[in-house]
């Protein structure tokens, strides 16, 4: 029983935004056959994958991992020196991989991480061998095809020393899926002087709950760029990925583009722990509420000399309803740290809308153009090919979103 503050009444507790009842989802699904030829995915699946930045035709891709519900449907690398397989298979292949499992995400962190350990449904293993610099990204798609299921994946990404790896990971559902729960544990390792651009696009259905649990370890001279885009309706999403910068000069940058539709609840943050001298971090979030709730968190922890980190959150309220709550946190534990933040929550300036209307755009068109500009992905510093893909995914989402 809970006390409802708004109504001032005691009422029976029901699963609400922010709460997920794991037991209410099915842990079994219809078996999905392995597809040697990715083009054989249905046109509906294809459309939803494209909206999440995943291209079944693999144009300008170095390889693909596709999982539907609880089955690996495709896993293949097209580029020498890049490895793509399920974590289940990778654990069989590499004994040493045990050392990476649950190294930076704790099994006991919450009920979701436990779920991923005790009822696992694969997940992707992506690895760039030392010194390998791939031009095109690897793509990974975690797809929910059956209604009302739970999907628990455990992913591992390793960018070995001196490698340059781009990953675009899209999560999507089939169009007839109403409800579901996605739990994704991801452990990401950026080795010495390696560079990883990790771009995640979420394209969920309205009543899907999502609990990613992601952590990244960045070694000396390594760079981790994480981009997260969630523009489609989602019932509730809670994630607080963390990067630990453990080597001198390591860099992490998080960019998030969030759009909350009415009824959506997004609790999203990024945390960077700067443990090594001279490491740097930047966390940038853009949040738009069109009636839904967004809690935009950020946490920078400076634990070494000469670190520099900045946190920026800008929120835009589009309607009378909804919520944007920015919670930036800075924590310095030694001297000679440089931590800063700026946060702003505002509305679309009327003079901007009217300016575009004076050019003949309707109020709706003007508003959409301004929101699109606000969620400008060019700040993500993506490689050109990837930028194109992200733009395509965003415009596919936008057609429905705005």
């Amino acid at each position, binding site marked *: 029983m809970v006390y409802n503050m708004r109504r001032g009444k005691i009422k029976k507790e029901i699963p609400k935004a922010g709460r997920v009842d794991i037991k209410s989802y099915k842990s079994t699904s219809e078996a999905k056959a392995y597809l040697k030829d990715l083009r054989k995915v249905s046109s509906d699946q294809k459309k939803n994958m494209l909206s999440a930045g995943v291209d079944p035709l693999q144009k300008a891709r170095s390889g693909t991992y596709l999982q539907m519900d609880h089955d690996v449907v495709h896993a293949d690398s097209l580029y020498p020196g890049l490895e793509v397989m399920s974590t289940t298979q990778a654990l069989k292949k590499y004994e040493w991989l045990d050392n990476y499992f649950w190294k930076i995400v704790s099994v006991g962190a919450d009920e979701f991480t436990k779920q991923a350990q005790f009822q696992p449904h694969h997940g992707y293993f992506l690895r760039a061998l030392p010194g390998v610099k791939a031009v095109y990204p690897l793509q990974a798609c975690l797809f929910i095809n059956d209604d009302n299921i739970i999907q628990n994946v455990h992913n591992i990404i390793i960018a070995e020393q001196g490698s340059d790896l781009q990953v675009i990971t899209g999560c999507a559902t089939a169009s007839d899926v109403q409800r579901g729960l996605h739990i994704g544990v991801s452990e990401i390792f950026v080795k010495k002087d390696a560079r990883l651009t990790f771009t995640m696009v979420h394209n969920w259905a309205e009543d899907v709950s999502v609990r990613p649990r992601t952590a990244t370890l960045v070694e000396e001279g390594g760079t981790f760029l994480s981009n997260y885009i969630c523009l489609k309706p989602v019932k509730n999403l809670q994630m607080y990925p963390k990067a630990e910068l453990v080597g001198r000069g390591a860099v992490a940058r998080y960019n998030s583009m969030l759009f909350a539709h009415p009824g959506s609840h997004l609790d999203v943050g990024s945390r960077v722990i700067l443990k090594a001298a001279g490491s740097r971090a930047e966390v940038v979030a853009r949040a738009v509420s069109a009636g839904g709730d967004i809690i935009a968190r950020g946490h920078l922890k400076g634990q070494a000399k000469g670190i520099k980190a900045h946190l920026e959150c800008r929120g835009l309220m589009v309607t009378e309803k909804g919520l944007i709550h920015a919670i930036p946190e800075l924590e310095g534990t030694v001297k000679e740290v440089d931590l800063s933040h700026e946060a702003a929550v505002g509305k679309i300036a009327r*003079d901007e809308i009217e300016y575009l209307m004076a*050019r003949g755009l309707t109020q709706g068109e003007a508003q959409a153009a301004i929101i699109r500009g606000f969620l400008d992905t060019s700040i993500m510093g993506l490689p050109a090919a990837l930028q194109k893909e992200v733009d395509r995914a965003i415009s596919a989402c936008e057609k429905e979103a705005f």
Partner: protein
Amino acid sequence: MAKDSGKLKNSGMLKIENLTVNVSGREVLTGINLEIKKGRRLALLGPNGSGKTSLVMAIMGFSDYQITQGNIVFNGKSINDLTIDERARLGIGVMLQRPPTIKGIKTRQVVQLIKQDDFNIDKEAGEINLKEFLDRDINLGFSGGELKRSELLQLLAGSPQLGLFDEPESGVDLENIALVGKVMNRILNKNKDNAGLIITHTGYIFDYVKPDESCVLVGGRIHCVGDPKEILKTIKKHGYKWCITCEGEKLKKKFQRQAG
């Protein structure tokens, strides 16, 4: 609020009838009467703060400018109740004096959205030295002259029947005033019926764009309508104060008789 006044007999493109406008509850324009006929250019002179910009903003329909009395008629129909975009689509275009910055929206995108099919963005932008600004956030960090040229590029792309030019020469260096004038003429001459309202408090732009008639706005009221050269000469000699007391009414009547 005045409703559709029906088709007018004459060929007036814009007719402003007894217009009173409030901004934040304060009256900024009082009983304005003006007419711009097809193919004509009317210059509106007046000191700073006289209400010139308010008139442009009210014609375009910006929400801060509330019509409390009177009527704005475009091509024979009252546009008082139309939204800004509806007015724009009827063929009214505005060159704002202080356009806002919109982060994340590139100049090119805006031009792309409003342009006519045969408009070549890169070529046209090149001709007005604005090519390098096409892929920058619109108006962000633009200098005075760059703002004017960006506004003109947008008007050129949209090709309005009636152009409202608010202080086209302010903040523009001498070298670029000629360019501004050239583009204004292109907009105004694109179709023979195109008309323009040119706002200025210096009249420098008249060296490049010739108005057919001028009027003087002081303290939110029209004080004088007449021959542009004569009016400008008088203002240069006596200042705007003189306009309030001069024989503006006579001039106005004379002008109206001439205009028939």
